[in-house]
C-alpha cells in the first residue's frame, strides 16, 4: 500500500511534464537552393534559438524541383510540407486550386493583422483574385526585382552619361565594346532557353510598349512594339559575349564581378551580395545599380518575388504560422538581407542604416519594387515561358528573324490557351 502514493507522485510528475512542456514539433520547409537557401537557413537557425522545441527539415530545391514536388504533394493532400515557397508566376495555380491555407482566417483567429509595412503591390500578388480585396494565401518572402547595372568607371572613361533610355544603353554598349575590344563586353545577360532569356528580355519588351496579352487575354507578343523590342534585343546582343545562349546566372554574375562587362541589363539583388567585397569583386565602387531605363514607356522592372505560404494540408499549421510570422518579421527580413543578400519585402527595412551601408544599392531596389511589373497571372505560365524562351533563343542564335520568332511564339501560345 505504501507504494501507491509513490506511484501516484511519479505519474503526476510525468503528466505535469507532458501537460506544461511545449510539444516538440517538426516543420518541413520546401525552400529554394542557393542564396535563398542560405537566407532561409539563417532564419531557421535564429528561430531554433527562441524555440528549441521546434525542429526543421529545410529542403533546398531548384526552381523546377520545388514546383514539381509541391504541386504533387499539395494536389494529393499528403501534407508533407508545412511551409512552402512559390515562384510568383506560378502562384495563381496554387491559389486557384485551394491548396493553400487562408491566411486572412488564420490572422483573424489569432487576433492579428497583416502588417502594413509590406509593399502593398507585392501583398496584392499574394491574394486571390489578384487585388486588394482577395483572400490572402501567402506573403512575399522576399522583395525580388530585376535591376539594371552599369560600370561608372567605363562610362566616365568614354564620356557617357547615365543611360535614361534603352537607346542610350545600345549606344553606350557599342562605344565601350569598340574601345575596349575583347577585354570587356558591352553587355552581358542570360541567354539560356526558357526562364533565363525571357527574364532578360521582358524589361526591354515592356519598355518598348510590348505586352504578352491584351485586355481580353489574347496573346499579342508579335505586336509592332514587341517586334521592335526583339530587334533591339538582337542588336544589343551583338555587344554581348558569343557564349550568351549558354550564359545563366553564374556566368552573368561572375562576369559582372570580374569586370568583364560594361552593362548588365538584368541583375537580381541576390546576385549582388559580393559586389563590394574586394576579395570577390574587381569592380568595388565602380558599379551603379538602378531601375531599368525607359523607352516609349516608363521603366518596367520585372517583379520576381517568391511567395511564402502554408499548405492547407499541413499537419502543423499552428506551429507553421508562428514560424511564418517570424520569417516575415522585420528583424528576420533584415537578417536574411544581411546574411544572404535577399531583398526585404517590408518597406521599413530599406531605411535600416546598417543594411544600407552593406547594400548601398537598396534604394534602387525599393524604387524598382514600387514601379515593378509582375508577369501575367495565368495558370499556363510554364508553357508560355518555354515557348517564348525557345523562340527568343532561336532569334538570338540567328535561326529566326524577330518577327518570325514572335509570330510563331504568339501562334503557339494562342494554341495552348484555346
Amino acid at each position: 500500500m505504501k507504494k501507491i502514493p509513490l506511484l501516484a507522485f511519479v505519474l503526476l510528475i510525468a503528466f505535469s511534464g507532458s501537460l506544461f512542456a511545449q510539444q516538440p514539433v517538426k516543420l518541413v520547409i520546401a525552400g529554394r537552393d542557393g542564396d535563398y537557401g542560405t537566407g532561409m537557413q539563417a532564419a531557421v537557425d535564429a528561430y531554433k534559438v527562441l524555440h528549441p522545441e521546434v525542429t526543421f527539415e529545410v529542403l533546398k530545391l531548384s526552381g523546377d524541383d520545388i514546383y514539381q514536388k509541391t504541386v504533387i504533394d499539395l494536389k494529393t493532400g499528403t501534407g508533407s510540407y508545412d511551409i512552402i515557397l512559390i515562384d510568383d508566376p506560378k502562384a495563381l495555380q496554387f491559389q486557384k486550386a485551394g491548396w493553400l491555407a487562408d491566411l486572412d482566417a488564420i490572422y483573424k483567429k489569432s487576433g492579428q493583422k497583416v502588417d502594413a509595412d509590406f509593399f502593398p503591390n507585392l501583398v496584392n500578388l499574394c491574394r486571390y483574385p489578384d487585388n486588394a480585396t482577395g483572400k490572402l494565401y501567402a506573403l512575399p518572402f522576399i522583395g525580388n526585382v530585376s535591376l539594371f547595372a552599369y560600370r561608372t568607371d567605363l562610362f566616365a572613361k568614354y564620356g557617357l552619361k547615365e543611360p535614361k533610355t534603352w537607346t542610350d544603353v545600345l549606344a553606350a554598349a557599342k562605344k565601350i565594346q569598340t574601345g575596349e575590344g575583347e577585354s570587356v563586353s558591352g553587355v552581358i545577360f542570360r541567354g539560356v532557353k526558357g526562364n533565363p532569356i525571357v527574364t532578360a528580355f521582358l524589361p526591354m519588351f515592356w519598355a518598348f510598349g510590348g505586352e504578352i496579352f491584351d485586355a481580353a487575354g489574347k496573346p499579342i507578343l508579335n505586336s509592332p512594339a514587341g517586334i521592335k523590342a526583339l530587334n533591339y534585343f538582337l542588336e544589343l546582343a551583338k555587344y554581348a559575349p558569343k557564349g550568351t545562349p549558354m550564359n545563366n546566372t553564374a556566368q552573368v554574375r561572375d562576369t559582372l564581378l570580374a569586370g568583364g562587362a560594361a552593362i548588365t541589363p538584368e541583375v537580381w539583388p541576390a546576385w549582388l551580395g559580393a559586389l563590394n567585397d574586394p576579395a570577390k569583386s574587381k569592380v568595388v565602387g565602380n558599379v551603379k545599380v538602378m531601375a531599368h531605363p525607359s523607352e516609349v514607356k516608363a521603366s518596367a522592372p520585372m517583379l520576381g518575388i517568391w511567395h511564402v505560404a502554408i499548405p492547407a494540408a499541413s499537419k502543423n499549421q499552428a506551429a507553421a504560422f508562428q514560424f511564418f510570422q517570424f520569417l516575415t518579421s522585420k528583424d528576420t527580413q533584415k537578417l536574411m538581407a544581411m546574411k544572404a543578400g535577399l531583398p526585404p519585402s517590408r518597406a521599413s527595412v530599406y531605411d535600416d542604416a546598417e543594411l544600407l551601408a552593406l547594400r548601398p544599392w537598396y534604394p534602387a531596389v525599393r524604387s524598382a519594387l514600387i514601379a515593378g511589373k509582375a508577369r501575367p497571372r495565368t495558370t499556363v505560365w510554364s508553357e508560355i515561358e518555354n515557348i517564348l524562351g525557345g523562340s527568343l533563343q532561336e532569334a538570338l542564335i540567328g535561326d529566326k528573324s524577330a518577327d518570325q520568332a514572335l509570330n510563331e511564339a504568339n501562334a503557339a501560345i494562342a494554341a495552348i490557351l484555346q
Partner: protein
Amino acid sequence: MKPSGRTRGKAPFYWLILAPALAVMLWLTVYPIVNILFTSFQSYNYLTDARHWVGIKNYTDILGDRVFIRSFTNTVIYCVGTTLFEVSFGVILALVFYGEFRGKSAFMIMAIFPMMLSTMVVCAVWKTLYHYDIGLFNYILKSVGLAKIGWLIDKDKALISLALVDIWQWTPFAFIVMQAGLSSVPTEIFEASAIDGSSYRQTLFRITLPILRDQILLLLLLRIIDTFKVFAKVFALTKGGPGNATETTSYFIYREAFSYFKLGRSSAASVITLVAVGLASIYYLRKILRED
C-alpha cells in the same frame, strides 16, 4: 518435353512462391505501362483534374508537333551515332589491349572511371570545358590559332557535343564487355590460326569478330536502349537548346509531364518512344536468340 506428374503436382506450390515476385512485377511494370497506354488516349491535366477521353488526338497532335518531331529525330540521330561509335571504339580498344601487359589492372580501373561518375557531375565539368568564352577547348583552339567553336551554342554542333560526352562516358563500358568476351575465347583458336598461316586481318574478320558477334549485338542492344532515353545530358547541358537543336523525346516527355502536368500528351509521347525502343530491341533480340 511434357512435365511429369510429380512436377505437375507441385505446380500450385511453385505458383505460390512465385506470386510475391509476380505481384511486384505486375504492380511496378505491367500496371504503369497499361496505365500510360490508357492515359495516352485521354486529355488529362493533373493540375486541374480535367480528364476525358479523346481517342487518338494526343497521338495526332504530337506527331504534328514540330518540337516532338525534332525531338524524335534528334533522339534517333543521337542514339545511332553514340551507339555505333561506342561499340566500335569498345571493340577496337579491346583488340588493342588484348592479352596481359604490365599495369593492365590500373589501366582497367582508369578506363571504367568515367562510368563511375554521376552524369550530372560529368555534365557540369563538360559544360565548363565547352563554354564558348571561357572553356578549355576553345582556349586551346585559340592558342593554336584556330577559330573558336560554338560547342553548345551552334545549332549544328550542339547535338554532336552532347554525343561526345556520352561517347567519352560509355565507351569504357563497351570496352570492358568486349574485353570480357575476348578473354573467354580459348587462346588455342588463335594459336591454331597462326600455325595455319592466317594473317591478322583474316583472324580478325573470320575468327575473332564472328566469335564476338553475340556480345556485339548485346552491346548494341544495351546502348540503344540507354541512349534512346537520353535525358540528364540534355537537362544539364543545353535544356534542349539552342532553339530545339538538342530536344529529345525524354526531355519532351519530362516537360509535358512535370512542367505542364499534361499527362495525356506525355503518356502518348512515352508510348511512341516505348514502341520505337521496343522494335529496336526485338530486332536485336531476335538476331541474338536466332543463333541460340
